């Protein structure tokens, strides 16, 4: 069987998405074999070669699989539709990997839906809750699947050989508990809340005095996009810095580290004891950094928000503690009373980290995900019946209000549409 993998050959600015695309390609190569794959360059500028469309037709590709986060498939599919004679061929299946920014491009997804109506279409999300979220936008629920974004076991695995060296560099005691967060240091990642929660854990001696919280990543100016709120350059840093300095006695317990190179992360994860994140990002469909940390055998304390909720090992459920979240007027509300008990439970666990790493990789590695994707690929679905009513309503808002489609016109707060669809992220 011939398949076409469609993606931008040039790496994305969004580094985690570059990694995801690369690993998805490896997974599909495992399923179909390199000799059966046609790689098609669909650039971020929405350009592609006409000869690639012809190759798809001439080699009778049976599945076209979109594995990149942007752009949406709309321009490509429209061109292919024209090349096919004003209607996409029914001899192919169209498989689209959906990323977290799905709601931001609804007008394009509308066009994708229009172009693929009546054809075999599958949408693949990276987590169970993202699948539930995206399912709301289509008439049929059975065309939406979930398969984790794969982690490379050659990049993330248990290896504590550099644990002491990293800890020495960070000035963390050998016996100290080191909590780590990696990712963008951004408003919706709730870094200020994270620092405050950590301080609370120190106050209440839930964690020993020499425990540290390591924050690794770049600060950004993204506020709450849906409410039209953005930050000035440096603003979120100031907020976090102020939060850190509210307790001068604990300043040394927080380490902010410049972003690490991808190849350095494994060592830092292995030097750490717990991945700690109470983020509630509006498009947290997954959490690649969490997946990578998990594959090193590290236990997790996370909100149960969106994609985070998929980070559990069915054989070792105790290694993930979830903090409940509910939707709020302007920001999801974290059940902060649950944080200390969750941290306490995690710290009391005794386990073989290497064994856990191996076990977690059984669910998140490239090979594991290849199995999930193969199963999805072989599943029969009915012809695509189009968009749901809620998607039509939200798209109409998107046309007029662009990213602020979920904002009330009367208040700086989320509207009913937000509550209706984002409930899927907290259930």
């Amino acid at each position, binding site marked *: 069987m011939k398949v076409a993998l469609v993606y931008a050959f040039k790496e994305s600015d969004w580094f985690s998405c570059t990694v995801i695309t690369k690993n998805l390609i490896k997974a599909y190569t495992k399923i179909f074999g390199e000799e059966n794959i046609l790689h098609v360059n669909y650039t971020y500028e929405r350009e592609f070669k006409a000869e690639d469309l012809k190759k798809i037709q001439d080699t009778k590709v049976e599945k076209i699989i979109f594995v990149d986060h942007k752009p949406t498939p709309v321009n490509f599919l429209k061109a292919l539709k024209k090349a096919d004679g004003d209607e996409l061929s029914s001899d192919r299946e169209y498989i689209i990997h959906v990323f977290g920014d799905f709601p931001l491009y609804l007008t394009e997804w509308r066009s994708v839906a229009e172009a693929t109506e009546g054809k075999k279409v599958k949408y693949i999300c990276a987590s169970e809750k993202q699948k539930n979220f995206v399912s709301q936008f289509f008439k049929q629920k059975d065309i939406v699947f979930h398969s984790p974004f794969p982690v490379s076991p050659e990049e993330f695995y248990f290896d504590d050989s550099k644990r002491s060296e990293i800890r020495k560099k960070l000035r963390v005691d050998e016996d100290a508990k080191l909590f780590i967060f990696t990712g963008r240091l951004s408003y919706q990642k709730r870094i200020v809340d994270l620092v405050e929660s950590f301080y609370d854990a120190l106050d209440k001696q839930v964690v020993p005095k020499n425990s540290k919280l390591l924050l690794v990543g770049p*600060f950004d100016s993204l506020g709450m996009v849906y409410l039209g709120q953005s*930050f*000035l*350059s*440096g*603003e979120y*840093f*100031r907020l976090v*810095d102020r939060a850190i300095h509210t307790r001068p006695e604990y300043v040394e317990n927080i380490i*902010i580290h*410049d972003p690490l190179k991808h190849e350095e992360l494994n060592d830092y994860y292995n030097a750490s004891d717990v991945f700690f994140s109470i983020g509630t990002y509006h498009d947290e469909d997954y959490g690649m950094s969490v997946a990578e940390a998990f594959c090193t055998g590290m236990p997790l304390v996370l909100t149960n928000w969106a994609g985070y909720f998929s980070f559990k090992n069915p054989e070792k459920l105790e290694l993930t503690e979830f903090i409940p979240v509910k939707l709020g007027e302007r920001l999801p509300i974290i059940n902060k009373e649950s944080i200390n008990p969750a941290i306490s439970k995690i710290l009391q666990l005794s386990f073989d980290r290497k064994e856990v790493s191996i076990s977690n990789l059984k669910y998140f590695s490239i090979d594991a995900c290849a199995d999930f994707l193969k199963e999805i690929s072989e599943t029969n679905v009915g012809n695509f019946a189009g968009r749901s009513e809620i998607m039509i309503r939200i798209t109409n808002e998107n046309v007029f209000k662009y990213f602020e489609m979920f904002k009330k016109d009367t208040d700086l707060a989320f509207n009913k549409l937000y509550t209706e669809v984002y409930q899927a992220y907290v259930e």
Partner: protein
Amino acid sequence: MLNKINNLIENFDKNEISYKKMINRFKDGKFEKLFAERFPFTERYFFEGNPSFSYEYKDVFDMGRYPVIMLRDGFLGILDFFLTHPKPSEDMSTNLLIPKQFEGLVPTFWKDRVALYEVKTRKVAFEKSKTLFVHGVGVEETFWKNPCETLYAGLEEKISQFDEIHCFFPTRTSTFSLPKDRFVNFHIDLLKHSFKTLGNDINVHETFDTYNTALKASDKFSFFNVDKSKVFISDNFIDHLMLKLGGEDLRDQIESHEEKLEFNLSLNHKIEITNVDFSKSVFNNFYLKQRLKGRKSDASIYKLFLDADVKKEFEKQF
């Protein structure tokens, strides 16, 4: 004074930060245009001290809405403000932070209302870098005191260590110049002299995008702002960006041992706030000359720039 500033910054309210208000109000249309033209050097950033240009406020009533304002202006804006307000206006209880370089422009009547700021690196040591980033605008005020030929004076040895040099020299109108001089080739002179001093292999970037791409690809670098005089802008956003990314300023930073406040702006840079030493004031040298001439109602930074006496005194004092 420092205690007062510290309290204002610690207890700030978002409503008291002009850049958060999303309302673009300028003293005049010419400055609005100038502000936009000099982007990204004028790009806005956040600090509780309310960094902004004096001409980003309509008038003293507008400024008076803010408990503290950190003036990003260079020599012209600072002088213009104090010539207009040699004593604090009764309609304005605002406290000001002004660039340390222009400490001498603060009138003594402003005692207890003004402190000084400097933006500095937080890094104590730098690894040797092979890449240099140079930025600036080829306009008349860049060479007001320092002719083009002196731009890189004293840095020749330091510059020789770099294998790769990137220059961000966007073409901009010399707004402050007389109309006949507005399109004089200050920009060409800057380029010519830069090629001569830095070498023929320098990468010259007209747009910030390509310069930024080169910057992102460098993990160790040094930087240099060709604007030594700071006639228009003291607090330049590109300087912030370079410091934030951990770059080493080729110009030596002097460690101050006086009483100061420090506020972190990023992992790699900070603002230091110190008291004014009024014994260094040279304000009267400018003020008396302007009084003798009779300061007109249409006095402005544009007129000050064209005033030969002001230029002469600036060259003497700064």
